[in-house]
């Protein structure tokens, strides 16, 4: 597939740019332009054109919207051609130039199975990729297979992928253990979890055993406990006897004392505490009597003190009024002074008023002035009129000026119109000019057509020349009888089969002859080296013997002569038999060889006949072809060449058709141009322009265009003047009306002004507007002064006078009641002050009386309390005296002492019994007394010591048994249903899952790694030979003969890629310079591409600035390599180096297609 035309309609920075790649002998095209001209864009655009625009084409949508991106092309190959548009769209992505939808598969016949990655890898090469390729070759220089495969595939990632696979596999597992490797990390987890499971899992038997052990330990503990309890019980009994024996003795002694007391007389059973009551009662009666006497004395003294205190009740009853009067006095204290100051302020305001009145010519009396003041509305009217006056005067002046200006402008326009003339142009001349300009616009197309015609002509000539000695006139070529392609292919296939058959027959004959010769040689060697007697030899010897014997027996041979002969014959025959018997195997071998020889001779004959037959068939076929080719006028042309010749003939016919088409189109365009020129010239003549007959179309167009534009301008000018006059007239009327309204408004003002002054009482003082403004200001001052004077009088002076009057009234009212003897005109302020002082004294005296009264009340309370306590003391001892049957405290004392003795003895007996029961561990009193009585108190300590030792021994035993029980219990409780083992098993499964994941990935990655290695080696085995040979040739050219071939050095392990210099020295890749390695990579890429292209299905090869760092000689060599490639496929060479152009022309000829991209690139 090749691209004939490529249109960057809207794409990247391009708008409407077209590139043409006409087909030449070498399909090589240079696209040249400075940096940023868009070369890289073109490279990407070709990919987008052929394989769809990526979903995100943002990079190319900086000038045009994404949805507007659009490319177009005309592509062709041996099977057809297609003119189409490529759109950035979701649905219909391909369209015809007429915008009809094309199926997405429309390009399939041209791009085949290639996808975009394939295209970019194989058919795109830029300087960066070439340099990367060179670096890679160095990296992989010891791996020939990888170098070849990667170069052929055009990928730079093979080594990276291979290394990544190896690294990933190693990161998972290698035979040496390391914690960092995924597999071993998981294995460590597994081992840990397995151990954890072992440690925590409990078998049922373990639980059964633990259960039995715990029960056994518990039994032993129970038995030891029982024994200990017996000892503890005996020890308690002994301890009780020891403890209670003294109480038993006490009990018996007190019971004896009680009997003695009762025997000495009756004893009253007075209440317990009677002795205390008696003693306390005596003390209480005595002390309360003394206190009561003291309190009576206090009451008498305090009552006397209170009665001595007096106070002023009259003034206290009017305390509120006296306090209010004093407060009022303080408030009005400064009023007299303030009244004087306020009056001064009033006088100042009235003075200001008088000064303003003097300016206005008004009277100076306040009362008169108040009558004279004009109304507020009249003053406002005057103020408003003053403000309007300026605007009215300005309106009047401005409107009059506008009227004057407009009148002058209209007069000037009218004057120009009166003197203006208009030119007239005919419609015929306009039409003729339009036609002529259309024809002129076709000039570039005309030039393109002429150029295309020349190109087509050259193409035809080259195509005719390519026909060689079988070239013919075009007519003959067109009409020549051409065999059908299918028939030609069938004939070629037939001949190929014939040739193959002859070659095969020849090969088989040669092989058979070789075998025959070998067998002959073997027979000769056996015969020569082995003394072999065959059965035939024996038979012949025996026949000879029998013949001699027959001759002797028939006397044909005399006995004397026959006997020796017979002896010899007999001996010979016997010897032959002996030898035959001794050489049986050799004879069999020889026989077999001879039989083989016979078979091979027969085979040789058959093969020779077959060869003769095949050769005859081929010769017959060739003779028939010679006859037929002569009939086509292709006498002597080989059948193998005829297809190529017919393709070249097709090229001739295509070129001829192209030439004719271009020439016809050119003639049509030229005729149309001439018709337009003649018509325009005639009309210009008619319009008065003297044009020479051979005046060119461009000059005629310019003349006609100038004439028409001039005439059209006069018409436009006149139209504009008339329009201007009309519009000016209407505007003038409007301006005049405005001026009139302004004048009338001023007159109205004048009349209103006089009336307003009169109403404002300013006529006398104001003749002008300025005077009126000054007068209004003075009126304002008068008004302000009057208002302030009135305000001070009402708000300050009048208020203070009222306060003073009220104070006097209140003071006199109070004085009449509290100071009846005061003078009627006494100073109320002094009176008020005096009353205040009197009130203070009365308050103080009243407080003293209250205090004395409170002290008296307290003393009365204390006297009453003392009286109550004395009565209570007597009541306390009253029940005791009654119980004892006496009336005084002294009589009661002996009775109380006997009662107390009885109670004490009874208490001690009860206490002894209580102690016995308390310490008796629940035994009854009788049992305890009996237990003490039965005990041998002397032997008690010895027995206690013995039991103590037994208990100590028991404690040790119990401790050991408790530990045993605890241990067994803990062991049993450890099996408490906990989940440790289950959790450990879960962890184990997690580790196994991790191991499984790691193993699966390892197997996959290791297999991939192995597969890749193996595949690369197989690729080398299959492709190395032809690829290296062709790459060596290209490399030789690129290095200007510095190197001549490429080899693989199998003596090295691993085999290494080497290059042979022109002097036969071998250089390994690592010994090549960086630039030379780049060229090696380029050679390998081009060789791989050539080899693959030879299988068909080409796409355009885009080379982007490959020779940036090449000197001219090497760049030229590179161009030669691309020239060779351009035999097989279209090569589009992008470069920003102008200096390469001469080299390109030198290599490809002057006709090489050069497309220049300028700045800017927009068409």
């Amino acid at each position, binding site marked *: 597939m090749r691209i004939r035309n490529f249109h960057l309609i809207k794409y990247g920075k391009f708008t409407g740019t077209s590139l043409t790649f006409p087909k030449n002998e070498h399909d090589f095209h240079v696209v040249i332009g400075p940096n940023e001209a868009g070369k890289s864009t073109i490279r990407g655009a070709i990919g987008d054109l052929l394989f769809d625009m990526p979903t995100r084409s943002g990079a190319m949508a900086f000038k045009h919207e994404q949805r507007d991106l659009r490319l177009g092309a005309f592509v062709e190959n041996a099977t057809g051609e297609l003119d189409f548009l490529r759109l950035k769209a979701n649905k219909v992505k391909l369209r015809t130039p007429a915008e009809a939808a094309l199926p997405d598969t429309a390009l399939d016949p041209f791009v085949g199975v290639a996808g975009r990655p394939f295209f970019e890898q194989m058919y795109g090469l830029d300087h960066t990729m070439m340099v990367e390729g060179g670096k890679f070759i160095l990296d992989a220089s010891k791996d020939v297979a990888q170098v070849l495969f990667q170069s052929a595939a055009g990928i730079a990632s093979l080594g990276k992928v291979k290394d*990544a696979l190896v690294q990933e596999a190693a990161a998972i597992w290698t035979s040496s253990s390391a914690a960092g490797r995924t597999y071993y990390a998981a294995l460590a987890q597994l081992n840990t979890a397995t151990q954890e499971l072992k440690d*925590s899992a409990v078998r*049922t038997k373990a639980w059964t055993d633990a259960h039995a052990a715990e029960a056994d330990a518990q039994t032993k503990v129970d038995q030891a406990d029982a024994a200990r309890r017996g000892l503890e019980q005996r020890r308690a009994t002994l301890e009780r006897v020891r403890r209670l024996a003294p109480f038993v003795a006490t009990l018996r002694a007190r019971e004896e004392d009680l009997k003695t007391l009762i025997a000495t007389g009756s004893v009253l059973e007075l209440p317990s505490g009677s002795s205390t009551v008696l003693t306390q009662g005596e003390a209480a009666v005595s002390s309360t009597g003394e206190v009561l006497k003291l309190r009576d004395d206090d009451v008498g003294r305090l009552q006397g003190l209170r009665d001595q205190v007096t106070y002023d009740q009259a003034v206290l009853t009017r305390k509120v009024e006296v306090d209010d009067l004093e407060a009022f006095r303080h408030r009005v204290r400064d009023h007299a002074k303030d009244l004087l100051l306020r009056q001064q302020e009033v006088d100042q305001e009235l003075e200001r008023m008088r000064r303003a009145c003097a300016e206005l010519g008004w009277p100076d009396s306040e009362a008169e002035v108040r009558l004279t003041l004009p109304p507020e509305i009249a003053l406002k009217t005057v103020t408003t009129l003053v403000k309007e006056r300026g605007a009215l005067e300005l309106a009047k002046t401005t409107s009059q000026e506008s009227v004057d200006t407009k009148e002058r402008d209209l007069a000037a326009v009218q004057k120009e119109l009166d003197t203006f003339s208009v030119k007239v142009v005919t419609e015929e001349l306009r039409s003729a000019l339009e036609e002529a300009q259309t024809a002129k616009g076709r000039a570039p197309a005309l030039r393109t057509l002429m150029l295309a015609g020349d190109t087509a002509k050259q193409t035809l000539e080259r195509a005719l020349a390519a026909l060689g000695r079988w070239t013919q006139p075009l007519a003959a070529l067109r009409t020549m009888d051409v065999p059908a392609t299918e028939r030609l292919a069938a004939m070629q296939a037939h001949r190929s089969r014939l040739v193959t058959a002859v070659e095969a027959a020849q090969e088989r004959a040669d092989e058979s002859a070789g075998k025959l010769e070998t067998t002959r040689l073997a027979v000769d060697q056996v015969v020569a080296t082995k003394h072999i007697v065959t059965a035939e030899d024996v038979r012949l010897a025996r026949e000879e013997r029998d013949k001699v014997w027959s001759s002797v027996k028939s006397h044909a041979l005399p006995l004397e002569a026959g006997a020796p002969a017979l002896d010899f014959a007999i001996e010979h025959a016997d010897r032959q038999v002996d030898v035959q018997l001794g050489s049986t195997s050799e004879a069999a071998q020889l026989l077999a060889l001879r039989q083989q020889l016979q078979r091979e001779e027969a085979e040789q004959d058959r093969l020779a006949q077959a060869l003769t037959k095949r050769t005859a068939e081929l010769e017959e076929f060739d003779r028939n072809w010679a006859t037929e080719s002569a009939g086509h006028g292709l006498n002597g042309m080989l059948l193998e060449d005829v297809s190529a010749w017919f393709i070249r003939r097709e090229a001739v016919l295509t070129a001829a058709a192209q030439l004719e088409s271009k020439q016809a189109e050119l003639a049509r365009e030229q005729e149309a141009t001439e018709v337009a020129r003649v018509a325009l010239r005639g009309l210009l003549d008619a319009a008065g322009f003297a044009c020479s007959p051979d005046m060119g179309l461009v000059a005629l167009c310019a003349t006609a265009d100038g004439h028409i534009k001039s005439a059209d301008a006069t018409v436009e000018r006149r139209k504009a003047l008339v329009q201007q006059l009309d519009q000016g007239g209407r505007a003038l009327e409007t301006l005049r009306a405005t001026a009139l309204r302004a004048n009338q408004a001023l007159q109205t003002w004048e009349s209103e002004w006089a009336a307003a002054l009169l109403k404002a009482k300013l006529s006398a003082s104001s003749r002008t507007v300025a005077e009126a403004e000054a007068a209004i200001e003075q009126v304002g001052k008068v008004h302000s002064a009057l208002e302030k004077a009135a305000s001070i009088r009402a708000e300050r002076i009048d208020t203070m006078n009222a306060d003073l009057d009220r104070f006097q009234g209140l003071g006199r009212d109070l004085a009449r009641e509290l100071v009846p003897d005061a003078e009627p005109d006494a100073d109320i302020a002094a009176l008020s002050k005096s009353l205040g002082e009197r009130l203070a004294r009365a308050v103080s005296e009243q407080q003293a009386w209250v205090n004395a009264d409170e002290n008296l009340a307290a003393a009365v309370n204390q006297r009453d309390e003392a009286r109550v306590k004395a009565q209570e003391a007597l009541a306390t001892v009253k029940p005791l005296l009654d119980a004892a049957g006496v009336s005084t405290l002294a009589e009661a004392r002996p009775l109380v002492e006997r009662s107390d003795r009885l109670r004490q003895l009874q208490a001690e007996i009860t206490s002894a019994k209580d102690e016995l029961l308390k310490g008796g561990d629940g035994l009854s009193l009788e049992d305890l007394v009996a237990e003490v009585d039965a005990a041998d108190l002397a032997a008690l300590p010895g027995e206690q010591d013995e039991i103590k030792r037994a208990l100590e021994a028991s404690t040790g035993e119990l401790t050991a048994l408790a530990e045993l029980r605890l241990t067994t219990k803990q062991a049993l409780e450890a099996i408490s249903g906990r989940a440790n*083992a*289950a959790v450990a098993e*879960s962890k184990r499964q997690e580790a*196994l899952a991790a191991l499984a*994941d790691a193993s699966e990935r390892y197997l996959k990655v290791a297999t991939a790694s192995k*597969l890749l290695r193996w595949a690369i080696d197989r690729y080398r085995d299959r492709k190395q030979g032809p690829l290296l040979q062709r790459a060596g040739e290209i490399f030789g050219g690129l290095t200007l003969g510095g190197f001549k071939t490429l080899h693989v050095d199998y003596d090295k392990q691993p085999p290494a890629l080497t290059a042979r210099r022109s002097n036969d020295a071998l250089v390994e890749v690592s010994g090549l310079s960086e630039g030379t390695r780049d060229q090696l990579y380029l050679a390998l890429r081009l060789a791989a591409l050539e080899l693959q292209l030879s299988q068909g*299905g080409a796409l355009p090869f885009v080379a982007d600035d490959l020779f940036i760092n090449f000197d001219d000689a090497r760049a030229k060599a590179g161009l030669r390599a691309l020239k060779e490639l351009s035999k097989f496929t279209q090569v589009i060479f992008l470069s920003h180096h102008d200096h390469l152009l001469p080299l390109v022309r030198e290599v490809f000829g002057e006709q090489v297609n050069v497309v220049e991209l300028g700045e800017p690139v927009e068409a």
Partner: protein
Amino acid sequence: MRFIHAADIHLDSPLHGLSSYPDAPAAQLRSASRDAFTELVNRAIEEQVDFMVIAGDLYDGPWRDHNTGIFFCKEMGRLKRAEIPVFVLFGNHDAESEMTKKLELPTNVRCFAANKPETVKLDALRAALHGQSFKHKETVDNLAIGYPEAVSGYFNIGVLHTALGGYAAHPNYAPCSVEELHARGYQYWALGHVHEHFVWTGPSTIVFPGNLQGRNIRETGRRGAVLVTVDDDGRVELERLFIDILRWETLTIDAADCATLQDVSRKVGRALEDLAADDSQVPRAVRVTIRGRSPAHGELFGLEGQLRMEVLASIAAIGNERLWLEKVKVETQAVADPALVEGRLDAFADLQEILRDAQTDPDFLKELQAELNTFATKVPPDLRPLVPTLQNVQSGELEGLVAEVAPGLLDHLARVE
């Protein structure tokens, strides 16, 4: 009458196939079978059921930790305190368990005998339970035919551990047919052994409740027991109790519209969010399988590890306590048809042919086996059943492995920048 029917509890059986990673909810879910069983007991107490039936496989067969039995006893003790009787039948997994024989179960637990079928009558409920435990693990006799006649006037419940005609996923123990069970005249058959939930209705209501807690990726979806309500007329109403602590899910992603690993990762992330949003209270163990003819096939082949990390990142964003990644399986295919690659003119066509040849090349297969065998011979025995390829390596059957790896390698090679 209301009772709970559960089976195949497999107490303390671990979850299989979940590898732990730093943020995986491992600690939270390692006792999933216990937690699920505790939840079952909770529900029984909350629902105040009349009794509970456990139709076999209370423990895992090879499991030997007696703590499991103790735990079971404690849970039964809770039911005892709530006055809920439990009827236990032993199946193939627990028939020969030492724990079964030695455990001292609370008095509310009644185990069916193994030597012959027996009937327990609950007069207060007018219900009769018939059952026979497995005596041996591999009980292949039809036990159902020996079950007693239905008790007249009672609601008869047959408790049986059976494969019921055979399910490929389970050994065909105690085989019988649905027709046989219907013919027995019972009103309800409480079955166990099959881990999926099935119900047959007809003369009898026959129920497999499914196992209580899914244990591996083959046991996906909701799991639990069945709450059975029987009204006064003997009508049966079933309600599934979903009490699983962790739910297994498979998430299949079609990567046909994904151009890159990032696209795949984003699509997986969205699908995971949808999954987590559904019934979000239960944590999930997820297997993500990437399928389809995808432009990202080669990239995925080379960067499986990175894809796993990105999926884990998506899970972290959703909440590690809610999702546990079981595995990311890449089963994509290359977009380019092999026939189209053959039509290419570059070395990839040759490479494809060579890789195809490798599948049948005895020398290559021998070399590969030797290399992989170094690894395969060193793995622990427990791992072998989990990685079938290991057996293939040792038996030299590596054609499948090569056929699986080759297309991915080819596409990966074609697309790596």
